[in-house]
């Protein structure tokens, strides 16, 4: 206790005024209280905005990966999602919800509202804001900007490249850099790691050849025939969909094409097995073996008649 405080019988009022005089006690400026209130609301607002961004990026990831070619990279959709979920953003979202609740509780009247009301309002605002931001492509933009400027940050683009740039497992990302004018079954393809591949495109349909001819970045499935001298057998070429303007309908269509392509290869595998058995004794020439009939996605994907025919 302060030494000035009395231990005598002097009236409290008198003692108080003496202390106010001697200690030069003055009412604090109104600005201090208003600043504190503004500060708390500002941090609440900031936490809701960052929470909304976290929701936007998470929504972008989840929506985008709904149409992923997960059969090419993983054994099933569950293991695929475990690998691609944006844990950093989910954690960020949870932290921001906590910060929002803490700040709202510390506003002048925040104590009047039960935690569940504050929690729900923060969640609703973050989800509404996040959905709106995602609608305008902010989820993709934020993820890409961070990925481009921070080496440590694994953006969805980096993750997708990492998953698809795996020649050992029959996947490549890159673009065609050279082809002859005449119809050819071989092109030169440069992957994102800068390696050039002699690419056998004999099993690619016209659509895929046209796509390669645009010289845009594509994803390839196939088989690395000889990795030392960089020879790759292509079995499917798909557009690089990690772009802002790609619509859900386009992603859905590409997913459909992918499933169809793999199904066609699976059908070839069945036909080869059948023809080998039938003609082994009466045919002098064995049918040409399809490399694509043996690629990993063919083995992983349960093929139905709706795609494979």
């Amino acid at each position, binding site marked *: 206790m302060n030494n000035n405080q009395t231990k005598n019988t002097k009236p*409290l009022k008198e003692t*108080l005024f003496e202390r*106010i005089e001697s200690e030069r006690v003055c009412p604090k400026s109104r600005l201090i209280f208003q600043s504190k209130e503004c500060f708390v609301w500002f941090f609440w607002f900031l936490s809701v905005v960052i929470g909304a961004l976290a929701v936007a990026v998470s929504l972008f990831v989840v929506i985008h990966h709904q149409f992923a070619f997960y059969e090419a990279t993983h054994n099933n959709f569950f293991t695929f999602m475990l690998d691609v979920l944006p844990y950093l953003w989910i954690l960020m979202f949870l932290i921001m919800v906590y910060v929002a609740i803490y700040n709202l509780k510390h506003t002048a009247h925040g*104590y009047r509202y*039960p935690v569940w009301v504050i929690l729900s309002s923060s969640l609703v605002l973050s989800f509404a804001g996040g959905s709106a931001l995602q609608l305008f492509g902010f989820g993709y933009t934020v993820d890409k900007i961070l990925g481009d400027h921070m080496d440590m940050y694994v953006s969805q683009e980096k993750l997708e490249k990492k998953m698809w740039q795996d020649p050992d497992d029959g996947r490549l990302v890159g673009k065609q850099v050279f082809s002859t004018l005449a119809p050819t079954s071989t092109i030169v393809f440069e992957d994102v790691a800068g390696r050039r591949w002699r690419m056998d495109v004999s099993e690619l349909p016209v659509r895929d050849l046209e796509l390669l001819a645009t010289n845009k970045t594509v994803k390839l499935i196939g088989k690395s025939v000889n990795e030392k001298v960089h020879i790759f057998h292509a079995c499917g070429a798909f557009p690089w969909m990690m772009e802002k303007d790609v619509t859900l309908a386009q992603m859905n269509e590409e997913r459909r094409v992918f499933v169809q392509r793999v199904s066609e290869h699976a059908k070839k595998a069945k036909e080869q097995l059948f023809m080998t058995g039938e003609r082994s004794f009466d045919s002098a020439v064995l049918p040409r073996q399809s490399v694509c009939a043996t690629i990993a996605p063919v083995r992983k994907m349960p093929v139905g008649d709706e795609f494979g025919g």
Partner: protein
Amino acid sequence: MEQPLHLPPSDEELVKMTLQDKSHFGVLVDRYQAKLARYIARLGVRDPEDQMDVLQDIFLKTYRNLNGFDTSLHFSSWIYRIAHNEAISWYRKKNVRPEGHLIGDSEEIIGFLSAKDESADAQFDKTVNAKEVNEALLKIDEKYREVIILRFFEHKDYDEISDILKIPVGSVGTLLHRGKKQLADALNQEAIRI
């Protein structure tokens, strides 16, 4: 000729007047000194000298923070909040628990027991006296004791208790309900022991 009726200024008006001229603060001190002394005594500040110290701190803090007074609150709720915080920090600083007679006389006990709307769910097995209620109050959790003191002995309504303790109004009801049950159990145990 009829004289115009001069009502004394409200607490809120006195706050505004104090900010212009500090001498008006004395009126607020006069209005609240006895009430707050009784309240902090119930919260555990029993020694008269300690009470004076805590009261000084309460009024000085009130004076310093006058510009922060939220006019949407009752001044009474605001100063009770300050008193509550100062009393709690006092006995935490002193590392003591509230002890002694939290409530004073039989009149208060009668008031407490006659609050039928509030105590309908608390079944007391016997007529209780001040000593027993005091002992039972000391046994219940602090969070319940605070609400019970404000509701039954300071006669604050739910909104005021909400503003004083900075908890939602719904929580005031819940704490009161649970507190009364705990108090009833403690009182009945007292009865068995006696």
